[in-house]
Every structure is written in structure tokens, then in C-alpha cells.
């Protein structure tokens, strides 16, 4: 534990998560959704997405929302070459950079501190990237996998549950919600109604809804009592 000494009890009480969170019922389901979105937005050049999505559907079909299932089914039905071509031409390659970078740092114009903030989140929560992916901590699929990672631990680590929960809300607010809706709009303008346009539109809706829901479960007693 590396938190500041002395005021930990009071500080911890800055934000609390209410009973409405219903972690047992929600955390693993949300983890699965984030994992599925991570696989939908993964580069088919780098991740065997057909295999991953096939496994996902086999194990999680009963618990995933219909909109997400439809996208997973569509991906599975798309041949690998088509998927790769569509993905890379949108998100990965271009004479002046990709038309719609799938990496937050590039998409948002390399705002100072973006990557550092991500690394600090990952380091704090123990999410360590493999060597070949370490250079792109801002990749959308990777950020979504991190959310999956946080949700999973919310479900399985009762001792640190509040940390995992607050981490999700902050990470989503500082990163995913900050740029994914813009990315979705950009892709829709490039390929209206295309597969990845629909994936990102669905994801943007999900992120906003999920963050709204998370926020609804978090309160700040200290602030409410005027002791903030």
C-alpha cells in the first residue's frame, strides 16, 4: 500500500460506491462487454479476432446484449482479408497518418500527458503490456481490455473493490469517453453505416451509458456534507 499516511480513512471516504452497484450482478457482465468490444476493435493483423470472437460467442452469447452480439456475429461472418483491409485502411495506414487513428494520442493530436496518464493508470492497477504492444498504450482495443481488466477485478477482488470501481470511472472519463465519440463520428463520416462505424457508434453509446451508470453508483459524502 503506497497511499498517503494518516488521512487514509478520511480520504477514502471522499468517494463511495453505493449498494446500487450490485457488483456481483454487474461487474463480470460488464467485463465481458468490454472484452467483446476490445476484440471488435482489435487489429485483425495483430490479434486473431475470429478465434477470439468465436470463443466469446460460444461462452458469452447468453449474457451479451443483442446489439453487441449482432456485431460479433457480423465480424465472424466477415472473411479475414476483408476485415484486415477495412480495418487497416481506416485505422492504421495512410499517407498522412491513418484517416481515423485507433490510437488516442494520435487521434487527439498528441495532447501533452495523454500517454503518461495511461501508463500511470496501467502501472497503478498492474496492467503490464507485452513487449510488442507496449509502444501503443493508447490503442482503443487495449484501453477497452484495460476496462475489462478493471471490471474483472471488481468482481473477483473484494478486498480492493472500491479501488477497481473508482479506477473504471476515472479511466473512462479521462480517456474513453473523451475521444471515442469523436472517433465514432469520424469513422461514420468516412464510411457511413460501415461495419466499424457501427461498432464505434455502439461502443460510444455503451461507454456513455456505462459511465453514466457508474457515476450514479458513486457518491462523495464529504462533499455532500460540505467537508470537501
Amino acid at each position, binding site marked *: 500500500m503506497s497511499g498517503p499516511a494518516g488521512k487514509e480513512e478520511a480520504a477514502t471516504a471522499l468517494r463511495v460506491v453505493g449498494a446500487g452497484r450490485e457488483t456481483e450482478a454487474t461487474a463480470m457482465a460488464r467485463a465481458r462487454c468490454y472484452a467483446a468490444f476490445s476484440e471488435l476493435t482489435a487489429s485483425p493483423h495483430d490479434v486473431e479476432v475470429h478465434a477470439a470472437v468465436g470463443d466469446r460467442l460460444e461462452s458469452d452469447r447468453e449474457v451479451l446484449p443483442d446489439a453487441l452480439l449482432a456485431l460479433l456475429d457480423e465480424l465472424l461472418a466477415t472473411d479475414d482479408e476483408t476485415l484486415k483491409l477495412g480495418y487497416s485502411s481506416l485505422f492504421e495506414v*495512410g499517407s498522412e497518418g491513418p484517416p481515423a487513428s485507433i490510437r488516442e494520442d494520435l487521434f487527439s493530436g498528441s495532447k501533452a500527458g495523454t500517454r503518461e496518464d495511461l501508463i500511470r493508470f496501467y502501472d497503478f492497477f498492474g496492467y503490464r*503490456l507485452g513487449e510488442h504492444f507496449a509502444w501503443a498504450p493508447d490503442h482503443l482495443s487495449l484501453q477497452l481490455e484495460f476496462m475489462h481488466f478493471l471490471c474483472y477485478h471488481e468482481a473477483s*477482488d473484494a478486498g480492493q473493490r472500491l479501488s477497481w470501481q*473508482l479506477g473504471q470511472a476515472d479511466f473512462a472519463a479521462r480517456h474513453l469517453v473523451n475521444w471515442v465519440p469523436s472517433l465514432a463520428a469520424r469513422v461514420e463520416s468516412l464510411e457511413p453505416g460501415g461495419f466499424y462505424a457501427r461498432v464505434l457508434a455502439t461502443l460510444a453509446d455503451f461507454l456513455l451509458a456505462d459511465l453514466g451508470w457508474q457515476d450514479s453508483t458513486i457518491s462523495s459524502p464529504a462533499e455532500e456534507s460540505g467537508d470537501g
Partner: protein
Amino acid sequence: MQGMGAAAGTTLGLHYAAAAGAEPIRGEYRRWEDLMRNKWTWDRVSHGTHGTNCAGTCAFNVYVKDGIVWREEQQGMYAASGRDVPDYGPRGCNKGLRHAKYMYGPQRVLYPLKRTGPRGSGKWQRISWEQAADEIADRFLDLATTHGPQCVTYGSGTQMSIKLASSAALSRFANITGVTVPEFYSGVGDLPTGVFMTLGQVYTGDTLAAVFKARCVLVWMANPAVTRIPDAHFFWEARYNGSQVIAISPEFTPSAMHANLWINPKPGTDTALAMAIIHVILEEELYAAGYIREQTDLPFLVRLDSGEFLRGQHLSLVGKFAVEENVYYIWDEAGDRLVQAPGTGLADPPIGRDRRKFETLELGALRPALEGRWLIDTLDGKVECTTVFELLKRRAAGHSPERTAAITGLNPKLVRRLARTFATAQPAMIYTGYAACKWLHGDMLQRAMLLMLSLTGNIGVEGGGIQFGNAPKMRGLSAFAQADIGPATRMISSTTWDYDHANLKEENRRIYGDELAELFDERYQRSIREDWFPSYSDKGWKMAFFAGENALNWRASGNSWRREAFDRLETVVVLTPDMSVTARHADYVLPIAHHYERADIMLQSRIPYVQVLDAAVPPLGESVDDWEANRRLIAAIARRAKERRLAAIRDEVDGRSVRRDYARALDFYTMGGRIRSVRDVVQYIINTTPGLPKISFEELAARGIVRVDHSEGVMWDHEDAPYHDEIVRSVVHKKPYETFTGRQQFYIDHEWFLEFDEQLPAHREPLRMEGFPLQMLMGHARHGIHSMWRDDTLLVSLQRGEPDIYVNPDDAAARGVADGDLIRVFNTAGEFHALAHLSAGMQPGMVFMYHGWDPAMFRGGTNFSAVIPTGGLIKPTSMAGDYGHLGYRPLAYAPNQTYRDFTCDFEKASAGGAS
């Protein structure tokens, strides 16, 4: 590169996480500010530098955390070359300190790309390395087996050549495959051919600390405050130390503002200035007579009837039929007799270096006359002869400061003052840039500069000399390229290659007229016919690799080259870390590791250290280092050759028969598996290059920089040092020069030189284009190294945000142009658009532009190369051969592609004129 597998179900499966899995949470999380409370730490700090041709080799510490380079800083642990000179540190500049950000930028090429739309359309497909390599290999094999490998080129640029292991890898690839290598040294107009004509050697530079030793340094056609940022302090420290630092340039450069004196001749009149200085030195007898008697051909006798040197074959039948053509004569004043000049008459000129070890320039009791006329008995009867020195005086008389004032625009009194300052300072140096090679008659400027130095005894002495860069003795690199194979490489000047393939004779005709076009072409073709210079063009140009080279950015006659040559290529493959204009128009783009992602070493003569590049992080995306990229290509060539059951082909290179068995190409490339990575290449070069400390790559990487051997002083003056020392050997140890005369050779009696009156240097007016009054000059930029980093957003923001061109305020006013206006720069060759940057530092009648801007950064998508029509200007004497040391020598003697002999005009751009 695959992830850890599916992540379905309730198991925590992760695609991107490290194999070791997740680590425990680091503490209780309350809010995001807590993240910032943890001290930022580094996983490692590695040593590296930037493998570009700024010749800086600045040692940097590279800071890495979580597999990302976050920042760099100057390593700064250099010592000095002696107690009486400043040290070499710290080193670094604005570009290098941006690289940790730039390497993650949007310009980065991360994956193998295949074009899916028309060239330049920007439509790409990411493909696997295997697919890319196989398709490229098949294309190469089709061409190599039907036309011969010479119709495929592997062009390398300055980024490539400067990294020794990468360069060695490319050389080995070329040696095995037989592709043609159009070298860029002459191609970018950097080859000091005038220096080679005079000294038989182009690599003459010392460390930059030598500048501090000069009592007078002429910074001529150079701008070290911008182009040599880590070393510029030596100039200013020399000035503080009492030396005269004199800047000579038409425009007021950032270097000129720090000089004691700024001399601003009109553009293209520098040779007239140099000859005027020579005139004053001769007229006022400020020359070092003893030095020139021993070291130069100035006392050599010349026949006045033919203009030839008096040679052994002129004097007797024995001499006439002797093998040696280089028996020269002096008139010995001591004995009042004709005497064969010491050090001449060697059996094997000019390469007979071993033989020369036993020869000497020492005069002993001889006292060669510098002036006089003598009637000499020859096989043709009595012939009047005089000395080169006499002829030089006559030539210089026509270039007095008063006579040249109208040419240079300089006050004769100022020129005389300059000449006296230069000639009486001991030692005196000329620090010049490669702009001196970029004029059509740049060779004569270099010869005149060397005359200034030689007459005053300043060649081969500490704090003197002409300071072009030196270069490492390439024995290690050559050994690597040829090991187990032997020499089988086709290396050719880009200049002649382009002339053959870009229809540049017609460009000459269109721009400079029929007479010039026909004359230049006739001599060019004759030189090729006589086998003075090679040509591998008979099979056409069908496929090109470009590595570390942004060819579409810098080519002279850019429009013609693009239209007539590049666009007609069947296959274009670009290997690059960053998207460039050349890559945009390629068929395949292969991703190459950037500076902090690779291992290599660099040697630059300006400092006495070998510099490491260590891989701070793995290459981004699917990029690989050049060794590995070439290995993958050659592995595919071997694999496909086997699968297609291709038999070995019989190739002929420069008269040698070469068997090329492509099925075995990979075995050759890796030396039977002994070379496994670029680190092995580096080690090979360390072990085989003279002057490099024999240490392991690992030790070098741990230290960053290591001092090279025999570098105690500021000069490269030791036979076992890594850099060329031949000139010092001649001056100090009296070994004959590797020239036809065995001396510093200022007089060239090749029939073409006599025909064009270039036997001695003389001013020639630069070529102009009728109706276009403005001479356009260019120079290296502060905010980029060639085209690298030129598009960095921060560096661009420190300028005007887009390409700008410097113009004189009066010229601008005459055209109704204000500062910041968009202008159209044009001539009959083409046009481009840029912002007008009004500066009183520009002379009327000239414009100036820093180079390197990518065409994509210009409105209209065309850069300055559109107005530079000089690609075909190959002056006849630059193709002369069969004359001792003159004749094709790769990377030493070849015609430069020049970039200066043209004019242009500008006007305010019409609204919407450039979109």
C-alpha cells in the same frame, strides 16, 4: 505477432498483457490525482544518437519506461583533443531533442504497405512482411532472370550511409544480387571533385577542434551556426581566442552575424573572388615558396606550344615508349639544369600506393625554379617551356580585385584586405560546405580555394586546410560486403544514371539551348564509349529500391526525373521509418526502425569518437532494422528462387564474370548463418575497421561513445587512425600524392581541360535563364536534417508554419509582394508556392530557401525541385578520364549533379492559385 489467445468467459484472458501476467494493484485508489503521486521512474536509460547525415553523432541518453521512449538528453561526456583546445561537448540540437516525440508521430510507417490505388493516391493496404517480401522477390527474380539485375536499383541516401552496419547490409545485398547502386554522394552534388583533381583524395577534413587552431578561418559557402550546431562553438571560441573568423556568403547567414567580417560576393562569383585573392598573394609575394616548390606542381615545366606538361616521352625515344607517362620535370636553379621532379615517374599511377612508400617529395639539394622560360630539346625540336607557377600568375592577372569587382560586386580594397589577412595568418583555414560542389564549375572554385591554401603553405598543417568532411577508411565495411563473395557490385553515380534515364539531354536543350545540350551530350557519350566512366543502363530501369533516401524530394530536374524516370518504373519499393513523398508514390513501403529502435555505429570525423546506436525499445509496429529488412527480402528471393527452380545466372560486372545463384542468396547474406543480427554486423565492422577500439558491441553500448585510436590531436594524421590521413602523409612525411603528378596538382593538361581552358581554375559566369532575373540559392535548415523532422509540428511552429522563401525587400516591393504573402516562384522548368519572407540579408537579384521541405507541405504539392532544371548539367571535364587519377572512382571522382546554375522569378500568387 499474436496475442495470448482468446479472452472469453469468466477467465481473465488478455490479448495485450505481458506473458508474466498482471502485477498486483499498487495501492488503494481514491482518485486519479493519486496516480500522479507516484514518482516517475525509468526502467532503463540507454545510449543512442540519431542516424542522420548531419555529421553530428551527438551522444544522447534515452529514457525508457514501460517500453516507451519518453525523453532524451545530451550525454555530454566528451574530452578535448589536447589541453589547449575546447572539448567536444555538449552535443545535440533541437532536432535530436524532439525525436522521442517525433518517433511516435502520425508520419511513422509501422507496417508493410502495398498500394491499392494509383500511385500517390494514398490508398494502402497493410500486408504481412511475408507477403511483401515474396511479391517483391518475385518481381526482382522476373527482372533479374530476363533482363539482368542491373535494371534494378538500390538507391541509398544519407540516412543509410551514415549508419555503418546498415550501410554494410545494403552493400552486401547489392553485391549478392547484382542490382545497380546509384550512389548519392555525387547525386546530391556533394562530391568535392575539385579537391580530388588537386589532391587525389576527397577526404581531407580534420576534427572540428582544428578550427580553434586556425588564426584565420574563412567560413565560405557554409553556415555552421545552423548546420553544425554542436560544433559551431569552435568558431566562436576561436574568435574569442583572437582568430579572424570571416564569413563569405551572398546572404547574411546566422553564421555571418557572429563573424569578424562578412564578405558578400554576388551569387556564383566565388571563384572570381578566390582568384582575386590568389592574385594579391602572388602580386605581393605572400606565398610560401619552399612549400610550393616541394608539395605542388607549380614548379613543373609546361610546354608553351601545346600546353602539356613536359614529360619523359617528349624528351627521348626511351621515354616515349616507356610505360610511365608521369615523368615530369623541373628546372633546378641550383644546378641550372633540367631535372626529373622527385616523386614522379612511378610505374603504377595513380593507385601504386605501395610503390609510393618508397618514393619521396624531398628536394634535397634541388631548388626548383618557380619562374622563368627555357628552351628544351625535345623529340619535336626545341620547345619553349615555363612553369605552372608562371602560367598561374598570368591567369591570376586577369582576376585582379579591380578587374573582378564588377563580377563579384566587392570593393577591391576589401578583397585586398581579405587576401592579406588570410595570407599572413598562420595557420589559415577554409571551412567550406558542400554548396561549393553544387555549382556547375564548383570544381574550379575548390581548386582555387586549394591554391589559396597551398600558396600560403596551409594544406596538411594543424589549423589549416580545406575542411570538407573526412570519412572512415571503409576497409571493414567493404570486407563485410564482399566476404565469401568478392567484389561484384555495380556502383554508379546517380548523376549519370539519371542522365541516362530521365531524358535530361532534352531538359538541357529546353533550358540551356541546343549548343550546350549537344556539346555536353557528345562528351558524355564519348566518355562512356571510351570506358572512362561506367554505364549499366543498357537494360533500362525497371525497378527501384530506395532506402534512407527521399529521392522525390531533392532531385534536380525534379519534374523531368519524376515524369521520365520514376513514374515509368514498374516497381518501386521504399524502405523508410517515416512516410515521405517518395514513399507516397511507391508500390510497397517497408517499415524501418527509427533511431532509438536499432543497433548500429556511427563514425564522423568531426569528433574523435565512435558513437553507438542501441535499441532502447523494440522497433515500433512491424518495423525492423535495415539489416533485418534486407535479410527478409533476400530470404524471400532465395525461397522463391528455389520454389521456382531458377538456375543460377551468369552476370558480368565491369568485365568480370559473376555467377549469381539466387537460391543460395540467404546463405551468402548471413555468411552461412554466422551473421544473425545487426549486432553481429556491428561487431564485424568494429573488428575489421582500423582505429576502432576492439571492444564488444555490448561494451560500446554500455558506454555510448568511445574514443577512437590515434586521436590525440585535432588532425587525422596517423596511418592507423580510422580516417584518411593521406594529405598529412604527403606534407609531413613527403609521400607523393595520389595524383598524376604525385603533387598537389593545380595544372591539368588533359586535352578536354585544355580545350575548355580549365587547365587552371578560372571564374565562369553561372548559367542563367533568359527572362528570369533571380538567382536561387539553398541551404541546410536549422529545423531539419534534409527532410527528416522537417514536418515535426513543434519545429514547424518555430518557423512560419509552412515553407517560406527569403527575398530581398526591394525585389519584393517591385513585385508588389509583402512579407508573408504567398508567392509563385517560377521559371520555364516549373513553379512552386511558398510564403515570402522579406529579409534585408538577401542581396537584390537573389532568393534563398532552406531545403528539405517535403512537397506535401507546399500548397499545390510541389516543392523547389520543380524549378531546378540542372539535373543534366554534366560538364565535359567532369567526365574526363584516362588521365592518371582522373577517371571514374566511386565516391571519389564522378560528376556531381549540380543545383545552382539557374534563375527564376516570383510574383504574388493569385487567389486560389495554389490549393
